[in-house]
């Protein structure tokens, strides 16, 4: 079933009476397509003091994963080897600052660094050549993938960094029909009900793969629309062409909602595809469909209400977080803009929420930050409104 997501009607419940949100009226021009419809959406403000500085002159590289654990601790994974010789002048002994931080970093709610580990092979496992994506599962274990050339594995550790499981291996070729290994995994989701791990696979392969979260045994996999995945080169994304019947690489996220729908980021195709847990295609939607290059749908997180009414979608090419209605997949609003100031983004790559409804983002390329956006309750905006940089309304000045 394909639904035309541009003509959803479920938003009616979100429409509000006229006359609300005067402070936003000047931005109506940014929401022309909405015909001035008002919608209620969560409001966020960046916390410019989060996180606290790292100790030891540690410097953070491309930051390509974020996850929140049951204690609302924020875990990120970054790439120390992307820290260049100037940034790591301490390591290079040409200056005082700085040194490469370990790739796995845990922060508390105040942004203080807690545990930190990872980066090298250990007994029974290989560290990916380019670690990518982090997930704290329902048992509290830490999963990572890897998108370096030949990375065909996912790894599971305890929060202290003790190795638990490796599925797949390094040094493999792209093969979206392999039941032995993966092809440059972007992200992992673990389903508590069935104890299954859903693998966004990945930068080489073009599929979602499902494995037993303890044994690593392959259980099923599928491609776009639930099709058998095919590794043929699709060429460049063309917004005018009929929708591709395969995922483009990277398949960049796979996240399951409370009502057991799996949302998959088909990044370069600028779309989200939704599946049942057994891989049956449900619906799809495009976000910023004209976006080329790296694509628009980098990562998603769900709002923390039981219904998960909203999807927060990180778009590292348009440099914003889109807020979508989860049922209709319609865009309600967005926040963020390009730049290096708090609340701005360069290559916002990963996104997660905590139990309080706050959002965390990490940025890759030369963004290299973890940012926190504090949930401030609901607000009324014109549908489609581009909120721009969301700073605290009451500053500490």
């Amino acid at each position, binding site marked *: 079933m394909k639904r035309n997501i541009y003509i959803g009607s479920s938003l009616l419940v979100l429409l509000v009476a006229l006359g609300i949100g005067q402070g936003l009226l000047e931005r109506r021009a940014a929401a022309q397509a909405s015909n001035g419809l008002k919608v209620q959406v969560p409001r966020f403000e960046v916390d410019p003091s989060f996180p606290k*500085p790292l100790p030891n002159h540690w410097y953070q590289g491309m930051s390509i994963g974020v996850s929140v654990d049951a204690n609302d601790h924020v875990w990120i994974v970054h790439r120390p080897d992307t820290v260049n010789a100037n940034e790591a002048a301490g390591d290079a002994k040409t200056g005082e600052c700085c040194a490469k931080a370990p790739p796995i970093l845990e922060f508390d709610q105040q942004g203080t660094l807690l545990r930190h580990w990872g980066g090298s092979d250990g007994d029974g496992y290989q560290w990916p050549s380019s670690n990518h994506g982090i997930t704290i599962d329902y048992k509290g274990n830490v999963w990572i993938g890897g998108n370096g050339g030949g990375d065909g594995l996912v790894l599971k550790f305890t929060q202290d960094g003790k190795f638990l499981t490796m599925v797949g291996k390094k040094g493999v070729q792209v093969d979206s029909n392999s039941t032995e290994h993966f092809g440059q995994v972007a992200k992992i989701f673990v389903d508590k009900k069935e104890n299954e791990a859903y693998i966004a696979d990945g930068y080489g392969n073009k599929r979602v793969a499902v494995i037993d979260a303890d044994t690593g045994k392959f259980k099923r996999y599928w491609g776009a629309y639930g099709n058998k995945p095919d590794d043929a080169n699709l060429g460049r994304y063309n917004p005018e062409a009929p929708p591709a019947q395969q995922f483009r690489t990277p398949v960049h996220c796979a996240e399951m909602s409370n009502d057991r729908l799996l949302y998959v980021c088909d990044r370069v195709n600028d779309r989200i595809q939704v599946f049942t847990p057994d891989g049956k295609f449900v619906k799809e939607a495009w976000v910023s469909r004209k976006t080329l290059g790296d694509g628009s749908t980098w990562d998603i997180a769900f709002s923390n209400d039981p219904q998960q009414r909203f999807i927060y979608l990180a778009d590292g090419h348009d*440099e914003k977080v889109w807020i979508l209605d989860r049922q209709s997949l319609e865009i309600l609003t967005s926040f963020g803009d390009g730049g290096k*100031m708090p609340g701005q983004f360069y290559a916002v790559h990963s996104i997660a929420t905590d139990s309080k409804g706050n959002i965390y983002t990490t940025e890759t390329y030369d963004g290299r930050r973890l940012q926190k956006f504090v949930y401030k309750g609901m607000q009324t905006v014109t549908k489609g409104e581009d909120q721009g940089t969301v700073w605290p309304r009451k500053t*500490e000045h």
Partner: protein
Amino acid sequence: MIAAQRGGSGQASQSDVDPLWPKPFPVAKHWILGSVTGVAVDAQDHVWVVHRGVDSLQTNEKGPTLEPWASSCCFSAPQVLEFSAAGDLLASWDPKDTKGYDWPANPSGIAVDDKGNVWIGSGLPTPSLAPAGRGGRGGAPATPAPPADAQVLKFDKTGKFLLQIGKGGKTEGSDSQTGFNRPGSVAVDSTANEVYVGDGFGNRRVAVFDANTGAFKRSWGAYGEKPGDEALPPYEPNGAPAKQFRTVSCVKLSKDGMVYVCDRQNDRIQVFQKDGKFVKEAVVSKTTTGDGSVWDVAFSPDQRLLYVADGHDKKVWILDRNSLATIGSIGSGGRYPGQFYGVGSVAVDSKGNLYTGETYEGKRVQKFLIRGSK
């Protein structure tokens, strides 16, 4: 405010970064800063910024400028920007739109004279550890090397062209009376109506010109000696002090009429009289190699302190101006507020607030409130 001693060494800096300065550009513009290569404060305490513009943006930072259009983010902000002390954008102009002079491939260094005229230098250092940015798929197409920067420009505050010294694309040596080699810093003595040029990233001298006519007046090298362009061996922290400047990355005038020169890759400041007579020198972070430690300097309003932007060690050193002893520092490395990457420009307003500009992929201007400074 956030205490600015982020990840620092424990020295009390008594400074706070204002993480919400300057204010975002208008949302519909989708403007971003490129690598910032100059910051200055004018007589009204307005903050002037020059940056390298679209040429310094990575592919993914300039999606709407690509052919075909690739994303909604972003456009380079105009290359010259004027902010209020509160962080509002007051004016901006993009000199590339006009003709009659040679806008540099890499504008570098900005100064505002007492008449409110805006001076801009040109050129970049020869890369040593400067990074190659990563900007996503496709990469930037190879472009032919731009003409070598060898000019200093003077505009009125609205961007109207007034004067050019030197000629874009035509570099001259340290003995030239008409040209430069990557003159990346400028300072104006409005009383004497003279402009001091830090010349530069290619040459090894300070050169002084009439600020109205551009006529050459005098120049000098390290220790006030005749500058020479012969190749120097790499900087050796324990070696004898070099007899020549290695990189002249700043020139600044104190209120008491002294000329401060940043000899960046020699990790030192040299101080001169206005006639070029050498007075004293100081080494800052002597063991720093690579890009060097002394990128730019600014004075506290009471002239008691000297702030030194150190883009390699990622901090602003605080020196006692009289003794040139290092007495503290602000900042550490990183991409968060109060941290630095490639901090190469520094300026101070009349209230003692400190402004920094970051080049490379720093691409920010930051404001620090210094307590206890006049």
